[in-house]
């Protein structure tokens, strides 16, 4: 082969790939005739929602597909011009790790808990024939390269002794062990906080420029794609609907689906708050301890009728603890929560029942928030069995039907069980349940975090409409800053149990006073490649 040609040869080529899954209800085509290539030293991002086939594609490259039920029906996957599918298994296995490596979403489940991390990194080298001592030295070197502080000491530590971001660094070290030509990263930063995410993305970018490898990134986050990719591929329901250089796709998306993903929904999400909002909740000097751990420190804020109070912060900042205290699922160590001027800790009898009606919750995980053995009607009517004075029994069905229509579902769905609904629909049911007692405040604890982008947009639009129609107030807890910026009237920024800044959303995001708020805003990527590159530069300078 002439050298010129070899240089331009793509690292990975996927040609007319079709992947089927055999299900009890028939054949399901997860990937439908997709073709793309990844050139050397190039970053390609596959964007798509759950069920789009993006992970299936990546797993097919690495031979991680469960066959059966999965089956590569037709097409080819070529690595450096050689077909992976027709290659003998031995040769293929030799290639994995050495030529192609992968980083997964959840580093905790992909690291073996019973071996020290150094051992696990060195294992990759040993598998590919490196002597033990050399492998250990190489592992140490890799730990330095991925930015593990004090690697000599950390070499023999176990996975649970590392934070999520550090674990992801270790996964990356394992993937980089044999200097692969292609690194496939499947949602590598999805489980991480934004500031950690920014650092992991920076690490990937640095490693790529050092080694000249190619990067195939799978993500649902447009900001991440805008941050790291040279080219993007957009997948929907197994079809590659759009591909091209990152700038042109983000600036002028061609396919309606891509356009829908990139729509700026700021206007849609924003809703006017009622001006005459009376004070519903007044939280002051709230302190919560878990044993010796001081989870919430001196937190105070208010919630008025019809107001959306956003609480943002990274994991461990205490925002969910505050939520569960408002919901009376947890007792505060000290401080008070006043509901219409009365302390909720000392409520009893009718007042307590009134509070339990006025404050409702929507939780994060749509799969665990509905009892799988109750049909929707029973789920909704449960509240009325607990509060029989709200609604006479003969009106239950009519009200349940009304609620279903209010959240955008059919009245005929009442007899179905949660298992028959998708994640977004389940979250709608959870919202309907929260509305059964005509509440004043709904606490949304990461209520849209587990949902796909388009579903998330639908749920937020629904919440906005419900506030307009019913005058609801929301305590909206989220780690997604861009979402809170569009949706909330007021925002609190929490860091390790304390509120570092609070105020009107426009003020906090427009002119953040606290250093942490500034860092948080800078670290959350925006879905605009040009702007994101600029932000990155200023972040590096800072």
């Amino acid at each position, binding site marked *: 082969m002439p050298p010129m040609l070899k240089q331009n040869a793509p690292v990975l080529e996927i040609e007319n790939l079709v992947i089927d899954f055999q*299900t009890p209800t028939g054949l399901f085509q997860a990937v439908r005739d997709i073709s793309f290539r990844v050139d050397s030293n190039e970053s390609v991002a596959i964007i798509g929602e759950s069920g789009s086939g993006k992970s299936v594609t990546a797993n097919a490259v690495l031979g991680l597909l469960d066959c059966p039920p999965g089956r590569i029906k037709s097409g080819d996957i070529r690595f450096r011009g050689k077909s992976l599918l027709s290659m003998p298994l031995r040769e293929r296995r030799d290639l994995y790790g050495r030529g192609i490596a992968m980083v997964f979403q959840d580093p905790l489940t992909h690291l073996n808990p019973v071996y020290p991390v150094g051992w696990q990194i060195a294992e990759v080298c040993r598998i590919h024939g490196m002597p033990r001592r050399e492998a250990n030295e190489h592992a140490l070197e890799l730990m330095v390269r991925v930015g593990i502080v004090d690697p000599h000491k950390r070499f023999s530590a176990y996975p649970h002794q590392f934070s999520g971001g550090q674990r992801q660094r270790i996964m990356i070290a394992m993937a980089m062990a044999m200097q692969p030509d292609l690194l496939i990263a499947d949602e590598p930063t999805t489980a991480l906080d934004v500031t950690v995410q920014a650092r992991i993305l920076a690490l990937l970018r640095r490693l790529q420029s050092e080694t000249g490898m190619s990067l195939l990134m799978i993500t649902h986050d447009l900001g991440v794609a805008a941050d790291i990719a040279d080219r993007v591929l957009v997948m929907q329901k197994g079809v590659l609907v759009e591909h091209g250089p990152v700038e042109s796709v983000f600036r002028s998306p061609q396919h309606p689906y891509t356009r829908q993903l990139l729509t700026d929904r700021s206007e849609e999400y924003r809703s006017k708050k009622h001006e005459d909002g009376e004070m519903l909740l007044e939280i002051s000097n709230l302190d919560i301890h878990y044993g010796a751990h001081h989870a919430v420190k001196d937190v105070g804020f208010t919630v008025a009728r019809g107001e959306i109070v956003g609480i943002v912060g990274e994991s461990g900042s205490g925002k969910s603890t505050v939520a569960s205290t408002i919901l009376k699922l947890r007792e505060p160590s000290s401080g008070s929560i006043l509901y219409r001027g009365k302390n909720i800790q000392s409520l009893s009898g009718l007042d307590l029942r009134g509070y339990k009606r006025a404050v409702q919750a929507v*939780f994060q995980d749509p799969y665990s928030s509905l009892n799988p053995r109750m049909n929707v009607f029973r789920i909704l009517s449960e509240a009325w069995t607990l509060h029989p004075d709200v609604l006479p029994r003969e009106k239950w069905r009519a009200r349940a039907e009304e609620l279903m229509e209010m959240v955008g579902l059919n009245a005929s769905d009442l007899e*179905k069980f949660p298992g028959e609904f998708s994640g977004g629909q389940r979250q709608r049911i959870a919202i309907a349940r929260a509305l059964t007692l005509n509440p004043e405040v709904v606490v949304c604890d990461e209520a849209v975090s587990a949902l796909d982008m388009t579903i998330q947009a639908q749920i937020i639009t629904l919440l906005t409409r419900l506030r307009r129609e019913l005058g609801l107030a929301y305590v909206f807890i989220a780690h997604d800053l861009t979402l809170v910026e569009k949706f909330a009237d007021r925002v609190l920024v929490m860091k390790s149990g304390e509120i570092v800044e609070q105020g009107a959303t426009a003020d906090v995001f427009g002119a953040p006073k606290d250093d942490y708020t500034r860092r948080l805003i800078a670290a959350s990527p925006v879905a605009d490649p040009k702007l994101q590159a600029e932000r990155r530069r200023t972040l590096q300078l800072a």
Partner: protein
Amino acid sequence: MKLTNAFALLRRDKLAFVAAIYLVVVVVLAIIGPELFGKTATAINLRARNLPSFDLNQGWEYYLGSDSLGRSVLARIMVGARNTIGIAFGSVIASLCIGGAIGIVAGLSRGALGNIIVRSVDVIMSFPSLLLALIVLYVLGTDPVNIIVVLAITRLPVYIRTARAEVLEIRERAFVSAARVMGASGFHIAIRHIVPLVLPTLLIIAALDFAYVMLAESALSFLGMGVQPPDVTWGLMVAEGRAYINVAWWLSFWPGLAIMLTAIAANLLASWFRLAADPTLAAGRKLADAAHA
């Protein structure tokens, strides 16, 4: 409406259907067997001693053979069904209900009560159950009710531990929190949310235990602390036949087969029930698969 649905579902699963028919026959025998065949079973016929199986010369009742006193094995099995099923069913139901309830309480209580229950269970588990049974039955006498109580106590720990472990997981789910936010009491949560989710697992264990308890009862009979002759149970028949196993295999074989078939039938029916009772498996199959892909 619901019952006909369940029947249609049962018809579709052939194995479970056969198991259900077998169990119905056994239960019917347990109810009317002693009245119909009580005489035949105790009748001593010296001309028909030690008849082998599959011999119709002495009449239908000797088709499965007879023992050294000339009593019909078939009739004894049919009569023994009442004691066997009664004791097994009674003790399984007792340990299921009591153990399940204690386990749920242990799982829901966040204080000392849960710990006390778990430690007591450890004590019961570490004490040899057969020894416990022997002591209790020696002191209280070998009344069938006492046998049921003793067998139930020795099987309690399994239910308590399983129920507790399941509750510990379920109580952290968001729908339990949602119910608490609405002001649901612990009792309401236990009945409405916990029991329906724990019950299928406990029923599976109960079905497996059914066989275990029948065998445990036969072990007690073997040691002379179980049901006393002239009353008869399948386990007792197996134990009595043991002495003649090399000359008259049918004495132990047929009651043993009856125990095995009952246990298998109970298991088949239990696993069918688990599938049939689970709405996520019955109706949500289509969506779940689409979501996985």
